[in-house]
């Protein structure tokens, strides 16, 4: 099989043609690196640390709620805790992990590019993210403490009258930095995917993960500037005497919610789509089949993105000032493309050869958990049902089902691509232990609080009436949170125990897409050689030419002749 061609693609060099990297070592190397793999790894490590910090806040919250009149923390500290738990998890963990960590490393190698389109901008994105995180978290060290108005910072609660103090301003400042970080990453992803694909990789031959990252990048560009503008307005209200969001000066508090949620709803799809992409890749590889309904997946992703800009006010149904039927039908419709994806995932496994590596277990766990979260979301799209679940633990349970599903997807991505990035596999037995603690912990954490919300417990409360039923449900949920914490410990242990222990090789999973054609880890500028690209599975076609995708109408299993026999050098 000589469809792998030398010479390699040429990279412009200015230092005499040396392939190897001569330059600074150690910390200076890290500070000046523009290599997407290094930047992506920095994002991964930083965002996982943020996940642990946010998780620690969660454990304190659950400990406080273990008793009705808990006094582990004061009322003021509790408001800081849930605000920073949500803020750290969404702004500093889930977002950066979704579009800055694995995407940064994997998208260029999935499309055969030597790096991202704008490497220095990529590095800047990381530094803005790191400094933004430090800024937001430093609120804990100023007088008045960290931001305490919820991760959504509704006006007028977030104005200078009701929340004086620097913690709130540090929160705003941190988000300005991380917001620009995200926008620059969106630019980089779009440019890379539009301009740096390898020969033969047409748009409809890109892996689904790359498609999802493209749509995520477009959503970032559509949504994040809106948040940035809103934050600047909030800062002006707080410090420059404007009255954009306060009634006294002729402003409209609910305008903040419109602006925030116009960003906020696309944001949750920005968080979700990358993990949808990861899970799609994993399920296909570990079923030994192509992605089922590839084109349907692409159109479903585009439909989700399109609809996501029209549903924001389903977070505002109880304000009484939004057009209920419009947002209700749009929100219900978003279930349709999501359902298409769900059935395509099942279709990928169908009649496959499903094998249960840790990555695959995490993806299957994702399917179930996301189904639960998605179905409960449908209730919330109906205003009469939202009226009695909004701001209760039912909503908390719904979105935790969703984000914990995304965590399962993240773990799936890490176990799947970890070997490609580092060159080493993680221990499978520990991985499976982590999976079971995580999966069971998630269900034990979320199911009781669905009921708790339906029984009337509001969210963002530090204490609750002494009701044995509520206490029992809270305790059960706390137990689930503990199990999730244990799974995180197992994950860290796994990384330590497996450190440089199990060499992976180029393609330990017999995977399908282009990144598995290169070495683990990839060399500087990613590829020594590229295969011929004739489908969305160039590595699979190269390794299994007799098992190409069946096209519509074909039912043979006979080996097919590779298309372009004449490309010998």
């Amino acid at each position, binding site marked *: 099989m000589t469809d792998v061609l030398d010479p390699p693609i040429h990279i412009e060099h200015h230092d005499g043609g040396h392939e190897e990297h001569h330059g600074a070592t150690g910390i200076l190397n890290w500070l*000046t690196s523009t290599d997407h793999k290094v930047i992506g790894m920095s994002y991964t490590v930083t965002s996982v640390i943020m996940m642990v910090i946010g998780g620690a806040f969660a454990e304190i919250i659950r400990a406080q709620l273990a008793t009705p009149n808990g006094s582990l923390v004061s009322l003021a500290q509790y408001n800081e805790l849930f605000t920073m738990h949500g803020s750290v998890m969404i702004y500093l963990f889930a977002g950066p992990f979704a579009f800055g960590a694995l995407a940064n490393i994997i998208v260029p190698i999935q499309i055969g590019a030597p790096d991202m389109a704008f490497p220095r901008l990529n590095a*800047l994105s990381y*530094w803005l993210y790191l400094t933004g995180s430090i800024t937001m978290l430093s609120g804990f060290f100023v007088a008045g403490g960290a931001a305490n108005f919820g991760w959504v910072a509704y006006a007028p609660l977030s104005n200078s009258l009701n929340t004086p103090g620097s913690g709130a301003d540090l929160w705003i400042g941190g988000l300005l930095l991380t917001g*620009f970080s995200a926008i620059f990453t969106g630019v980089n992803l779009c440019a890379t995917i539009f301009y740096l694909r390898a*020969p*033969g990789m047409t748009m409809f031959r890109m892996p689904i993960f790359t498609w999802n990252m493209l749509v995520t990048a477009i959503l970032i560009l559509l949504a994040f500037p809106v948040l940035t503008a809103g934050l600047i307005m909030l800062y002006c209200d707080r410090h420059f005497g404007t009255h954009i969001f306060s009634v006294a000066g002729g402003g409209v508090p609910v305008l903040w919610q419109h602006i925030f949620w116009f960003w906020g709803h696309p944001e949750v799809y920005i968080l979700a789509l990358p993990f949808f992409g990861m899970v799609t890749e994993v399920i296909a590889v570990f079923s030994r089949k192509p992605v089922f309904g590839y084109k349907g997946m692409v159109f479903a992703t585009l439909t989700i993105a399109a609809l996501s800009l029209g549903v924001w006010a389903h977070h505002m149904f109880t304000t009484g000032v939004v*057009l209920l039927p419009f947002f209700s039908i749009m929100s219900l419709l978003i279930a349709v493309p999501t359902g298409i994806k769900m059935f395509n995932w099942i279709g990928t496994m169908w009649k496959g050869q499903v094998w249960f590596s840790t990555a695959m277990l995490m993806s299957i766990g994702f399917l179930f958990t996301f189904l639960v979260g998605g179905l409960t979301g449908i209730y919330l799209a109906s205003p009469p049902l939202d009226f009695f679940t909004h701001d209760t633990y039912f909503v908390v349970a719904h979105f935790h089902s969703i984000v914990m599903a995304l965590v399962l997807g993240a773990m799936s991505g890490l176990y799947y691509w970890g070997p490609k990035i580092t060159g080493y596999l993680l221990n499978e037995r520990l991985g499976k232990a982590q999976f079971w603690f995580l999966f069971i912990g998630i269900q034990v954490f979320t199911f009781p609080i669905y009921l708790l919300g339906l029984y009337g417990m509001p969210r963002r409360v530090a204490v609750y009436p002494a009701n044995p039923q509520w206490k029992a449900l809270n305790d059960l949920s706390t137990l689930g949170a503990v199990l999730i914490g244990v799974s995180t410990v197992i994950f860290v242990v796994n990384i330590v125990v497996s450190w440089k222990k199990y060499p992976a090789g180029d393609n330990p999973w017999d995977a399908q897409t282009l990144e598995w054609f290169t070495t683990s880890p990839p060399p500087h500028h990613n590829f020594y050689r590229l295969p011929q690209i004739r489908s969305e599975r160039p590595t699979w076609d190269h390794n299994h030419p007799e098992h190409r995708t069946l096209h519509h109408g074909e039912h043979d299993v006979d080996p097919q002749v590779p298309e*372009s026999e004449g490309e010998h*050098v």
Partner: protein
Amino acid sequence: MKTEAKVLLGLGTFFGLMCAVYWNWSLENAGGVMMFAGMLLCFLPGSYYFWWSRRMKPRPEDNPQATQTQGAGVVGAFPGSSIFPFVMGMGAFFVVLALVFGIWLLVPGLALVVWALLGGTAEGRRGGHH
């Protein structure tokens, strides 16, 4: 480039339709303006790609029968190590801290930003390290 154009123009058209329905039905201005802006954001690069895709020669990545030799040669400029992203990041950090802790922080902040802009531009013109 045609698919890229269609993706962006398709999204933009959808946003335009959604905006028309929403703004007329609700008479609510914030959402209407934001949806309209979203439509413009998609039409800007989308129409450029649409116009350009009809004039350009097909690139190797748009050709389903392309071979890897067709992609040989300079793919792009990929600046190697550079201190300026870090400098710019630190500058932005200080500028934001100035919003919280005092105007005086704009001095180091803007100094670092300007250094990064000048240095980074010069580096880009020079070619930079690899």
